[in-house]
């Protein structure tokens, strides 16, 4: 009993310190803003209403309560409540202490922002839940305690046999459904089932963008473009194993092809979107080939450095004074025309989301087909051991060039759509950081597979966009998240698995014949 309480108090101290730290970096504001947004308030500002701070405090308490009973399944009901109560109380006391200090700062009007920039008076007031200092402190403590008790009740409830059985049934149920879907996608009526799947996904893709509002469409579009980029780089890095760092250069070539052919300045060509798109893809692929030819003998680090140089050269060329009359120089190119489809101009984010979804589907389709083919296996062999791949009869130079060209074509596609959507492109959008972003998204998501790339793009491009409101702590939170992610899942969020090949029954006699004729 004594040890249990001592342990609970120790957990409480840890969480108390975490709570204080969170307040000092204004993490509570961040969560409050998120909650405000979720509940439908359009512009919550930096410090939303007090009720969201109350919600944050309750959530914090809930977390404390759940964590207090972590790995304590064998205790009796009373001990569990006691243990979570003592943890909650410890955190509440520490939180109360902090609130007392904050109240003193508030009442005495001590100007502390020189040392801790977040502690503005408004923020302190909000942290005290918008009440008077004494009430606020007591309320904070009470809410944490209530939250902790509620959390422990949740854990206890979750550990009940009936609830556990429910989760288990739910698990098997989902597994069965997935199994049935998999069976259906292979079985007799697989075409029909695939069609049903496409219709469902298509339905979501068609109706969500019209409901979302332009900000989410912007974020979603950005993620989509990065999925295309990630798939392209995955062909180069994930499948054929060449570490290319200047990948964004191909994106720039696609974007500038679109821009130069479709902007009033500097050339006034106005070719229209579709021809420029095709030309952008072709030019990117060609530049991939051209880059590839001289670097075919390089491997590993050397290849990375040379391609990094290539990326920077492209960016500096676009920026240079010499080419200003041709590329628009450092100011970039404005007023790029959007596409026309069936006589209707693309004039909203929604149209572009559809276009990008189409691009993602095309890219995934091509990637998937290539991955499970002779070509894909040749790439994988090169990644595993280039010398042996060559001695096994794979023309390594041809296949490495092919990987570069196809990967670059993907980037060209994404770049062209990007330039057209933003109606602007400039050299600084294509800096090294963008290449690194694409590379890290495929590493975070899981090298060499489509779901991993999509998840990686959401994590790396979607999450910072969502967190954009909290400019100061965005990168801090994001960095911490990445570190945790790489520690807990070093192979990426969704690691690649190899496809299974089963012996087809009907071709068996065919093989016998072959065997007999072999060696003659």
């Amino acid at each position: 009993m004594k040890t249990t309480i001592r342990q609970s108090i120790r957990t409480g101290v840890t969480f108390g310190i975490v709570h204080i730290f969170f307040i000092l970096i204004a993490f509570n504001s961040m969560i409050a803003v998120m909650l405000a947004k979720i509940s439908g308030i359009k512009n919550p500002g930096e410090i939303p209403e007090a009720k969201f701070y109350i919600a944050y405090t309750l959530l914090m308490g809930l977390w404390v309560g759940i964590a207090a009973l972590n790995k304590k399944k064998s205790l009796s009901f009373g001990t569990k409540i006691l243990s979570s109560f003592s943890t909650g109380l410890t955190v509440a006391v520490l939180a109360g202490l902090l609130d007392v200090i904050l109240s003193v700062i508030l009442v005495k009007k001590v100007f502390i922002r020189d040392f801790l920039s977040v502690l503005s008076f408004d923020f302190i007031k909000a942290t005290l839940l918008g009440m008077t200092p004494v009430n606020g402190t007591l309320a904070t403590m009470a809410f944490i305690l209530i939250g902790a008790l509620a959390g422990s009740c949740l854990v206890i409830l979750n550990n009940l046999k009936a609830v556990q059985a429910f989760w288990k049934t739910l698990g098997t149920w989902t597994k069965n459904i997935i199994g049935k879907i998999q069976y259906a996608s292979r079985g007799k009526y697989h075409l029909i089932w695939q069609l049903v799947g496409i219709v469902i996904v298509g339905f979501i893709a068609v109706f969500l963008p019209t409901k979302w509002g332009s900000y989410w469409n912007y974020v979603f579009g950005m993620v989509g473009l990065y999925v295309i980029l990630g798939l392209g780089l995955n062909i180069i890095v994930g499948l054929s194993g060449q570490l290319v760092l200047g990948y964004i250069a191909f994106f720039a070539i696609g974007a500038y092809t679109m821009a130069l052919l479709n902007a009033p300045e500097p050339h006034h060509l106005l070719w229209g979107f579709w021809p420029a798109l095709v030309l952008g893809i072709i030019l990117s692929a060609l530049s991939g080939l051209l880059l590839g030819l001289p670097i075919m003998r390089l491997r590993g680090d050397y290849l990375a450095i040379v391609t990094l140089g290539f990326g920077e050269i492209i960016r500096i060329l676009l920026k240079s004074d010499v080419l200003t009359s041709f590329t628009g120089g450092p100011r970039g190119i404005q007023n790029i025309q959007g596409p026309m489809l069936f006589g209707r101009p693309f004039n909203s984010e929604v149209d572009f989301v559809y276009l990008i979804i189409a691009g993602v589907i095309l890219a995934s389709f091509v990637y998937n087909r290539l991955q499970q083919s002779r070509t894909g296996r040749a790439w994988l062999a090169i990644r595993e051991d280039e010398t042996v791949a060559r001695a096994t009869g794979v023309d390594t130079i041809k296949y490495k060039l092919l990987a570069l060209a196809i990967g670059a074509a993907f980037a060209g596609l994404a770049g062209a759509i990007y330039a057209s959507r933003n109606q602007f492109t400039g050299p600084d959008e294509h800096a090294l950081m963008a290449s690194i972003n694409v590379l890290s998204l495929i590493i975070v998501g899981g090298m060499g597979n489509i779901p991993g790339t999509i998840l990686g793009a959401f994590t790396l491009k979607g999450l910072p966009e969502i967190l954009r409101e909290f400019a100061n702590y965005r990168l801090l939170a994001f960095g911490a998240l990445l570190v945790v992610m790489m520690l807990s899942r070093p192979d990426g969020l969704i690691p690649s698995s190899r496809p299974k090949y089963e012996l087809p029954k009907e071709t068996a006699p065919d093989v016998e014949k072959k065997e007999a004729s072999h060696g003659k």
Partner: protein
Amino acid sequence: MENSIIQVQGVSKIFGGLTAVNNVDLEVSEGAIYSIIGPNGAGKTTLFNCISGFYIPEHGTVLFKGQPLNGRSTDTICSLGLSRTYQNIRLFSNLTAIENVMVGQHPRLQENWIDAILRDRRCKREERESVAEGYKWLEFVGLSEFANAISGSLPYGAQRRLEIARALSSKPVLLLLDEPTAGMNPQETLEMTSLIRSLRDKFNITIILIEHDMHVVMGISDQIAVLDFGNKIAEGKPAEIQKNERVIEAYLGPGGAALANKYRRKKAS
């Protein structure tokens, strides 16, 4: 020789000041099992690398089915029908066993990337056939139940056999095996020996073998060449090699021949 499949003519390979292979001639007739033996560092693997195109020899030529191989890249040599395995196993270790064997079939297939994207008739047919082929070769080396296992996680002996299956799947006429029984226990060695023999008997593949295990070498070779310090010091049938004094000296040092004779006489009497 009329039916010789490969002729090595005066090949030398020099690394800096070291002559690893010095003016070696070999001639292997079709359907033979030909062993190359010699002490460590004698230049056996270097000679293999010269034949299979990994190294370009400084002097001499290698004729494969009458065509010179000098300067050709390893993928061309492979597609001509010359396949090899490695002294330290070099599988595509993150791919499955069947995928390794399917990569091995690469030079025989025609399907290209456009076929793959469109998944046209040629692509579908070749995919189906290459899976079936792959299973056939895995079956042959006794690995068909491991077809979908990651090859790097297979046991050591299985990895050796998988490497042979990969080499076989390009349907070679000449197979170079670099120490196929290294690190194996007697049972595995026995199985490997019968596997090598059946390669020749079933598929009529010519085999050149580097091997240290004398039981294996003497048991299955039709012809043996002995290398020492880069020079070929003897060539002949197993029985001849066993009696050759220079060979015994290369292995046992000067005076070794006399010692061996004494031992042999004692055994006989």
